[in-house]
């Protein structure tokens, strides 16, 4: 479904991605783990078209997307939940959700789609008129995921959804991610520093180090891998 080959991305002179190859099949949950500064967010932003790859190809359903502007990529069915949630803090929860729907037929199906979001995250229903910024961190993450789901994506990119969130809510969010994949049939590409949780959830995983993919395999295999255990799981990994 998503095929990334030899992608390199620069910030000015700084090279953040050094020829990344990643493949995500339809219906899968694929995770990408890596430490801070490895280039995970850069990869997601490059897929979404916010950052441009200087070389390499990105194919989505066999179509080249590496040169498309972000809004066209969203229209094709790739939504991103960006790192740090990026909720519109001074807008209401409802407005945040409506903005998520702005790509999909300008929100014509808001009432239908928003029900799906309530199913995933019932708390949001009671908070519709509250400002986004007044939600707790976990609720904001739920809103960010719900907002991205409003665009009816075929594929959801999630950038560190567990970042800075209470462990109890992290579980809830990972269950929701699983539901989105299993019930709504949305393919998931999950970026995490919380390697254990991500690998337990994922069908397959990749490890990114300094802009290079160094390891790949099934979630279970990677969990058992000695190098990964040393680097990301035993104390090295962030909770």
């Amino acid at each position, binding site marked *: 479904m998503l095929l990334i080959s030899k992608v390199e991305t620069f910030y000015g002179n700084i090279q953040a991605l050094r020829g990344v190859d990643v493949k995500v099949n339809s219906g899968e949950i694929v995770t990408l783990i890596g430490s801070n500064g490895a280039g995970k967010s850069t990869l997601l*932003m490059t897929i*979404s*078209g*916010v950052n441009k790859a200087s070389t390499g190809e990105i194919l989505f359903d066999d179509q080249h997307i590496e040169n498309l*502007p*972000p*809004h066209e*990529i*969203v*229209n094709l069915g790739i*939504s*991103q939940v*960006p790192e740090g949630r*990026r*909720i*519109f*803090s*001074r*807008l209401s929860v409802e*407005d945040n959700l*409506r*903005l*998520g729907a*702005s*790509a*999909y037929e*300008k*929100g014509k199906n808001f009432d239908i789609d928003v029900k799906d979001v309530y199913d995933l995250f019932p708390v949001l229903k009671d908070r519709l008129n509250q*400002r986004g*910024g*007044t939600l707790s961190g976990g609720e904001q993450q739920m809103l960010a995921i719900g*907002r*991205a789901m409003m*665009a009816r994506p075929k594929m959801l990119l999630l950038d560190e959804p567990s970042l800075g969130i209470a462990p109890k809510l992290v579980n809830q969010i990972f269950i929701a991610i699983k539901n989105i994949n299993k019930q709504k049939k949305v393919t998931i590409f999950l970026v995490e520093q919380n390697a254990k949780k991500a690998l337990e959830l994922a069908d397959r995983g990749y490890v990114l180090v300094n802009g290079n993919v160094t390891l790949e395999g099934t979630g279970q295999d990677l969990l058992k891998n000695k190098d990964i255990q040393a680097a990301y799981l035993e104390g090295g990994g962030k909770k």
Partner: protein
Amino acid sequence: MRKNFLQSSIKDSLFTGLIALALFGPIVGLRTVAKNEVLVVSPKWFIVLVIVVVCALGRFLTNLYIYNRDQKYGIQSTIGKSITNFLDTKGTQIALSAIIFSVIFPFLPFTDRYLMDIAIMMLTYIMLGWGLNIVIGLAGLLDLGYVAFYAVGAYSYALFAIHFGWSFWICLPIAGIFAAMFGVLLGFPVLRLRGDYLAIVTLAFGEMIRILLLNWYQLTKGPDGLTGIPRPSFFGLPFKSFPDEGEQTFHTFFGLEYSPMQRIIFLYYLILVLALITNLFTIKIRRLPIGRAWEALREDEIACKSLGVNPRNTKLTAFAIGAMFGGFAGSFFATRQAFISPESFTFIESAIIVAIVVLGGMGSQTGVVLATIFLIGLIEVFRDFESYRMIAFGGAMVLIMIFRPRGILATRKPTITLQKKEAAK
């Protein structure tokens, strides 16, 4: 802790004094006077000393009583919160009473020609403030060249009305469209700019338009300006004291005595309606996808992109629609004055409009009204003390920025950053 604080405040005030010295030393201190046809410097060090002491002392006092943490949430927010709360709970009633008051204003016993003129001027600035609020308050694009669109509207109106003799109601939308086109023209090159850079380019754009108007003599008559701009008529009935043979005028048609006030009152209602349309439009568009996209863009451009909001179109429409209302206001200005020249469209106009929006509390429609009444009222009150006017103006701004740094009506609840600060306290 306390001693440290005192020390740092003193240091800070001394530093403020130094800055004041560096600024006012050359500007005020080294005054040039003409003596025997040559310019000589006549130093005014005493005045400089007074200014420096006032600045340093002022800084010290604000440090002590306002920026002092123990006091901060005392003075600053009790006043502010109570105003904001009051407007939050009674908002619709207040707005309604304000509109009713504006409608009956021309017929109140104390209303005279002078008050009407001020009211018309205030309404023009309110309309400009509301128009610019779309660009600054909603879309978050700091536009310092808004006067350009006011000018484009005024000149397009004047040129079409003079050369083609078209009526106000035809020229008004044309002027709006022209201004909107200039809005897009400005929008394109600044799409990638934010903050300070955007402000600089828009400022330059405002000046470019003025200089263009000044130099394109064939079209604009340059510094001479355009005269004989047709006055608006009341749905085809002109306001004239001596009608031509067989001509119907406003007063003959309604069987009234002629009075020059009739036209003034008509102009008043005209600008009132135009301003209210601007406000209504803004209130409505905030609930539409495009208005929501403006606000989202102001909050976070990257999040917008990742959600499929097209930032280019969103910014361009904000510039275009903001400019359009500026153009409408410009048309009104042209028809009211019957004479326009580039002098009416200098940077100070942009600055006043921006001040109105910022002091009002960016994005607050009511704030724009309060800030206009305050600023324009202040300028009027000091009309007889011409030389002190700018001091009063500047002083008022400093006071507002000290006591209400987010604007008179920061109706928006504190953002996350502010909450953090409060928590840190």
